[in-house]
């Protein structure tokens, strides 16, 4: 395996007395779709929050493209190329669909208060680029017809697509999707896996946390299994499905 795009070395996170993530070592290969699965409370979302810098790790280190992420605040990690979506979607409800995606272009544009206040030519130019790029991502997820609608007026399935478009608008190398399939119907899930495939083809590495096994088995090229904060298995979907520890984590162990 060449240099992984993301690597965690013995990363832990402790909340009070609870060990949410326990000495996890991960290597995420660039250009692939990796799924992180595990029962509720396995520490999947906590791991995402550590990678994106929502809170610092209690112990261990995280490397993105070989560079340590320690002490880099969350908003700067986005500029480095790590984007994410949330379990509870978190769209900007006070904006239109298009504006949500335009906001995603924030780290790829630079003009500030002064440029905006005085409508400097640079602001005009950048705004044009932001608009065109946003339209590109809007059409990528097939929401072109809803550009001027309020973001929260969309049904949940489309809201989730919009959240992905917003994350993609930050032009990431690594996209972290937190339960993208939750709450979607069969048709929407099919659209979603199609979209994830297209995103990978654009050269973006995708890591998803997901509960929906058929979805995971259908798209993930590598599966990592967490349980109680620890990594208990990894491999291809087929390998993981046969793993004893994975089966017992999901179904519970026999009482001896």
């Amino acid at each position, binding site marked *: 395996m060449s240099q992984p795009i993301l690597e965690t070395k013995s990363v832990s996170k402790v909340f009070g007395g609870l060990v949410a993530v326990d000495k996890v070592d991960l290597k995420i290969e660039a250009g692939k779709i990796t799924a992180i699965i595990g029962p509720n409370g396995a520490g999947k979302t906590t791991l995402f929050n550590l990678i*994106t810098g*929502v809170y610092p790790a209690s112990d261990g280190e995280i490397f993105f493209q070989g560079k340590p992420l320690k002490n880099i*605040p*969350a*908003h*700067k990690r*986005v*500029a480095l190329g790590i*984007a*994410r*979506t*949330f379990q509870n979607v*978190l*769209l*900007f*409800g*006070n*904006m239109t669909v298009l*504006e949500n995606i*335009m*906001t*995603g*272009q*924030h*780290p790829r*544009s630079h*003009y*500030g*208060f002064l*440029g*905006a*206040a*005085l*409508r400097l030519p640079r*602001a005009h130019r*950048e*705004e044009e680029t*932001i608009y065109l790029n946003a339209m590109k991502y809007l059409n990528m997820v097939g929401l072109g017809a809803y550009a001027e609608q309020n973001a929260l007026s969309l049904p949940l399935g489309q809201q989730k697509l919009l959240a992905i478009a*917003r*994350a993609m*608008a*930050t032009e990431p190398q690594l996209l972290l999707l937190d339960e993208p399939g939750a709450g979607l119907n069969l048709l929407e899930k099919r659209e979603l896996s199609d979209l994830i495939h297209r995103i990978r083809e654009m050269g973006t590495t995708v890591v998803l946390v997901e509960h929906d096994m058929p979805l995971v088995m259908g798209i993930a090229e590598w599966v990592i299994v967490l349980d109680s904060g620890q990594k208990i298995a990894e491999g291809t979907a087929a390998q993981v499905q046969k793993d004893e520890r994975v089966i017992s984590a999901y179904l519970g162990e026999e009482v001896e």
Partner: protein
Amino acid sequence: MLARIKSKWTYLVSAALLVFLILIPFDWFLGHYTTLMIFIGISTMVTVGLCLLMGYTGQVSLGQAAFYGIGAYFSAVLSKTYGVNPWLAMLIAAAATGAFAYVIGYPIFRLRGNYLAMATLGLGLIIWILFRQLSQFTGGPDGMAGIPFLSVGGFVFDTSFKRYFLVWFFCLAILFISQNIVRSRTGRALRAIHGSEAAAESVGIDVTRFKVKIFVLSAVYASLAGSLLVHHLRFVSPQPFDFLASIKFVVMAVIGGLASIWGAIFGAGATRILSDELMFRFGEWDVVIYGLILMLVMIFMPEGLFVRLRQLLERWRLRHTWREAEP
């Protein structure tokens, strides 16, 4: 199609309003209201800052009068006591107020919601007490008179008529700048923070920095307004910068519609007229009335009175257009 109708309509209305605004101070028109309009212009400047801060970014400030007062006192003391050129004094005042807002911005924006409201309220009270207590500079509770007029070259702003244009020049410039900010990358970042701080961070927005920056901008607006106020009255005392003043600015912003830049004029105007024509009848009960207005507007028209009226007008106009289009 709809957008084009709207922009043509907006253009016409804006042009008509501008002409109206220019004609107001002439004696044969509404000259009687010149002074009132000066106060409305000054209040609007503070209110716009509050709209950006509260309406767009979602951060409460119950101490905006502090920045208004700092600007006023810096201008007053520098230009009168130390004989500094009033324009330079105004610039120093704005820079000092901005720097002050920047310094307290970082600790204060560690707080959210009600705690932020309490902190800004406390800030307002502390600054107000300083105005009263630092009497060797500020003249204490009695205030300080004899502040010079502003002037450009040999042209002195010594009548209300002249100052009307000065104040509204500043006011419209600030409205214009704010409108540009709102419709930009920065404006989207501010609204994103209002929408969801976690999501804003996830698209690379430095949440605290933007909060502080908009706080500084609103403080500078308030400071400029304060400077214009003292050069208009030629007198300064702590009274216009007390707790009630901060509350009034919030009422103005809320009535104007928090997320509407031009609504600030309406909010400031309505509140000012209300307080001049009506409130004095209630004596010290006016605080209760302001509170009541605030509650009623927030409950029944959370988008603000101005925005609500505009929506109704829009709906009426659309219906009208539809009827005409029918065969």
